[in-house]
């Protein structure tokens, strides 16, 4: 029963207000910088790059003054999936990691072989997923939905000139975000009302799918009707407030970028380029070779 709390699963717009440099960034610049770092994460396949990325993420997290525990708690449901992914990568390594490459076998048991290459793949891909997760949480925790929407509109604004409906798109997204919690609460109330009338949302058994689908009907029909009625009411309300489309409409918020915003964007660009460069020159190999000679000299 305690699971009947649908807002718990709606993390969109879970803004956590803190007085931090990350919170204060111009959302357009924050979005662009975020995109650049995500690009860096996506293309990093080496240890060095990921160590740098983890450090970067940790730096951003401490700058944002967000609670570490709460940010990482969202990872918990993803842990089994991460473990499964690692297992599959070990059992079925990509063909390109064949003996042709200079991979050394670390551990072998039956047909399962763990080479330095697969180990790197597992570590790096896990690290990348964690980095992506923390980065996304960082963005949504430190940016209100309104800022996100205005930021998106600001980033897309240049496309308006070639006929891209940036303003309309932004309004649609705003309203959608605005109604996510409302509809979640509505759904919760419908589920409770049906349970109170004897509906059962938890049994298993044969024909479960058919039963489950039939059980959804009492929820979906009213939810659709309510949503339709709501959107009708919203249209009337928007009409009454003089909405006629984007043409002569003004914007209350004008985003102003300050020096910090430019510095942040330049830093993110530099970081992204550096990561990509490290990856292409395979600094790892250089470092490993250096480490080997260093260890050899110790003996």
């Amino acid at each position, binding site marked *: 029963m305690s699971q*009947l709390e649908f807002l718990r699963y709606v993390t969109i717009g879970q803004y956590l207000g803190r007085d931090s440099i990350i919170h204060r960034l111009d959302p357009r610049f924050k979005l662009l910088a975020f995109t650049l770092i995500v690009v860096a994460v996506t293309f990093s396949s080496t240890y060095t790059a990921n160590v740098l990325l983890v450090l970067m993420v940790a730096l951003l997290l401490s700058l944002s003054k967000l609670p570490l525990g709460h940010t990482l708690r969202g990872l918990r449901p993803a842990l089994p999936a991460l473990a499964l992914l690692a297992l599959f990568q070990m059992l079925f390594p990509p063909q390109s990691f064949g003996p042709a490459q200079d991979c050394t076998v670390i551990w072998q048991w039956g047909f399962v072989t763990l080479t330095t290459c697969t180990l790197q793949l597992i570590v790096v891909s896990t690290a990348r997923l964690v980095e992506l997760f923390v980065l996304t949480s960082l963005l949504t925790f430190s940016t209100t939905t309104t800022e996100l929407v205005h930021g998106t509109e600001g980033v897309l604004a240049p496309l308006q000139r070639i006929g891209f409906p940036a303003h309309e798109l932004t309004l649609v997204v705003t309203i959608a975000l605005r109604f996510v919690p409302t509809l979640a609460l509505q759904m919760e109330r419908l589920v409770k009302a049906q349970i109170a009338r004897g509906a059962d949302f938890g049994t298993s058994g044969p024909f479960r799918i058919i039963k489950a689908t039939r059980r959804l009907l*009492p929820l979906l029909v009213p939810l659709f009707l309510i949503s339709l009625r709501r959107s009708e009411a919203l249209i009337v309300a928007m009409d009454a407030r003089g909405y006629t489309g984007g043409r002569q409409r003004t914007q209350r918020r004008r985003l102003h970028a300050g020096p910090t915003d430019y510095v942040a964007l330049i830093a993110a660009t530099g970081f992204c380029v550096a990561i990509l460069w490290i990856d292409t020159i395979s600094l790892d190999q250089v470092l490993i070779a250096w480490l080997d000679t260093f260890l050899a000299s110790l003996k």
Partner: protein
Amino acid sequence: MEPAQPLIEIQDLHHTYEGAGAEPVHALRGVNLTIEDGEFVAIVGANGSGKTTLARHLNALLLPTRGRIRVAGLDVHDRAAWPTIRSEVAMVFQRPEDQIVATTVEDDVAFGPENLGHAPQEIERRIRRALTTVGMWEQRQRPPHLLSVGQQQRVAIAGALAMQPRCLVLDEATAMLDPAGRRQMQALLRGLHADGMTVVLITHWMSEATLAERIIALQEGRVAHNGSPRSLFIDLDKLASLGLEPPPVSLLASKVARHHPEVPGEVLTQDELIDGLTPLLADAGSHPPTTLSTPEPPDAGGQPLVVTRDLHHTYLADTPLAAKALNGVSAEVYREDVVALLGPTGSGKSTLLQHIAGLLEPHAGQMTVLGQDTSSSREVDQRRLRGRIGILFQRPEEQLFETYVGDDVAFGPRQLGLDHQAVRERVRWAMDLMGLPFQAYKDRFTQSLSGGERRKAALAGVLSLRPQLLLLDEPTAGLDPRSRRDLLAILRHLNTAEGMTLILATHNMDDVAVLTERVYVLNEGQVVMEGTTRRVFSRAAQLRALGLDVPSAVSVMTALHERGWCRSEDALTIDEAAAAILSCLPPPRSGQNAVEDGGEA
């Protein structure tokens, strides 16, 4: 001096809704009206009388099927005039959550001025003014869905005010508010009107309609009354034919006046009634306290049906958005009790109901329902328990999902696994009980029912489970006076004739006065007052401090009591208050009035 042009001028307005494949509905059939600048007008009428349709013509949201409307001298058929018309006549609707477009309060208020194309500085100025006027400036950064309904409605008004209109139209905008929210809204409207705003208020609350200078009653799409509130509310026969009721205070005055001709029977407000009684009661001097012959209901013995001990509940526990809803609630409900849960919005009433229904699990504390401990054991036969507890949520009419009324009512019994004949019997019983005769209604389309009928169908769907315990969350909110009276009579019947135990959460104190025996008052998740309805309502000042109120009858009696007159403390309903006042009054002076009195009696 030439008379100024009226703000709104309506001539022979007809409006017909044409549905695909459905019978056309003639919502308005020839309305003639003018509304002058600076007026305060109330529009009343039963459900379906055309109030909302009329309101939506006032700023060109709907266009006349026939007839003419001019707003600020502009013809509504002129599309180019719409932006001007909509900035002159702003509108607030019943449900604030359906009219808020943005994700923060201030962005939402900005929406109108942005649409009108104002400069950013001007928009900022308007946001500040509008939010200050409604008292929401401090909350400007918050997301709307985390505000109370009363706060959301004030944001909606701020959104309308930010367009700097000359006229504000409110379409049942107070229907969902708690007493404090309603009082604030009324004070706000009075203030706006004093500053020169034209206000058009559509309402089901007759005492709210008395705020207006002029009242317009609609009946089947025509104007049935257009005059002062007094001229409408003293005409009880006309009110009844319109499906309306007088404000409780007017009803009380007319009941007293019927037996005591020196009492003015034509009053609208409590102050007027007391002013009218003052000379008579002052003459009578200090009167010994009277007690009516209504005994306190016995503290019912036997096994309590519901027992909660130190119940705690937190929504979204372990997240930064955690909100404590129940903070140690202990309460008891006995068999065949009718218990009211009162409390301001967000005090935990709905949460407590859901706990009793077994839909939430307490985080701490004990809960026994129908003899089963539901707080700790997971092996409770929840399904069997659920068949015995019915719960009617807010706006239950939205939860109907079957095509035909009969099928929807049958949903519960079918889930319980009853055979066809038993299901049919229960559905018949529940529908007949609710005043939706089985034969006539079982094959009607759910969506073709009126609002009041749909609520009855939803309640029938709960009753068909034959619950021993019925929980109701705001059962009468948003109903017109006649549907409300019907529903209260049905609930009373369920208790007295069917022996059902009722627990209801409500904002309507007059409902509590006529229906319930005991009251729990919640505030911030704790029980702050409890006892018999009389005892709780005898503490008016404390209730008002909590943002609640007392029934109209109690309010009048308390005011008399404060002046040292007529110290009858146990009048709850209008009839009891009338009897109490009559017992305090000196006998009517014999004379010309006695004949009249005799004639009426």
